[in-house]
């Protein structure tokens, strides 16, 4: 499932549009990940507050969204571009890759919430394909 030229254009323009709200989106997406899928909290036992909208969640949500926006810049070669991040997730964080899909779902939900008119089905499929490729690139170094 590779990204067409149209997919890349849609992804780039949509991420440019949402960039100003990156922190809010990241916060909402991560808050929902931890709340709606409580098993994901196991990765954050070192945080004091895991309730939606807490300070560590807001901060980390921005980190994650910045990662996605960086991936957009590297959209033409995600495997190479995300190599270091993949090593981080594989060897240091050791996040089960099944969880990447969970964050992806919540990012899509929050995009729909904040941009109901812009997050059309065509933008949705382009972004979903892009995030799936990001997840694949992040899983690259696992085994």
């Amino acid at each position: 499932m590779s990204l067409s030229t149209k997919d890349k254009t849609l992804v780039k323009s949509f991420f440019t549009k949402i960039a100003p709200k990156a922190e809010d989106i990241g916060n909402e997406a991560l808050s929902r990940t931890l709340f709606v899928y409580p098993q994901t909290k196991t990765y954050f036992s070192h945080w004091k507050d895991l309730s939606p909208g807490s300070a560590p969640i807001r901060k980390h949500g921005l980190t994650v969204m910045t990662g996605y926006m960086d991936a957009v810049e590297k959209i033409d070669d995600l495997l190479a571009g995300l190599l270091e991040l993949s090593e981080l997730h594989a060897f240091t964080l050791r996040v089960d890759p099944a969880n990447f899909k969970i964050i992806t779902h919540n990012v899509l939900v929050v995009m729909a919430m904040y941009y109901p008119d812009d997050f059309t089905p065509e933008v949705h499929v382009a972004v979903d394909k892009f995030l799936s490729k990001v997840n694949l690139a992040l899983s690259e170094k696992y085994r």
Partner: protein
Amino acid sequence: MVEWTDAERAAIQDIFSNLDYEDIGPKALRRCLIVYPWCQRYFGGFGNLYNAEAILSNPMVAAHGIVVLHGLDRAMKNMDNIKNTYAELSVLHSEKLHVDPDNFRLLADCLSVVIAGKMGTAFTPEIQAAWQKFLAVVVNALGRQYH
């Protein structure tokens, strides 16, 4: 048996009482057919599904979206017995329609995205959790009679 808190029941009832079936049903099915195009395999008789524009303007897709959404009514009215309520529908989807049950999950995800788009920030994490739990039970019940 699925346990529902009062808050969860209220959240589900609330979403349904404000639901415009004629709007949300078509939106969810169209989104599913566009975002997960392999789902189109079940709609061979629906005419032109060739691209997003065609799907978005296809009247049969819109009509069927309403049918599917009304199908959820039964679950909402029988929240303590969804498994049995959907036994017949499950057999139908398995024996007659031959739908891969993974597709139920895909449509459920699209429905969540559409509801999120409609409710905006009113779609709180708590409401999202209740809604997705409800859909997960429905999806599970629809796949139950497959063998």
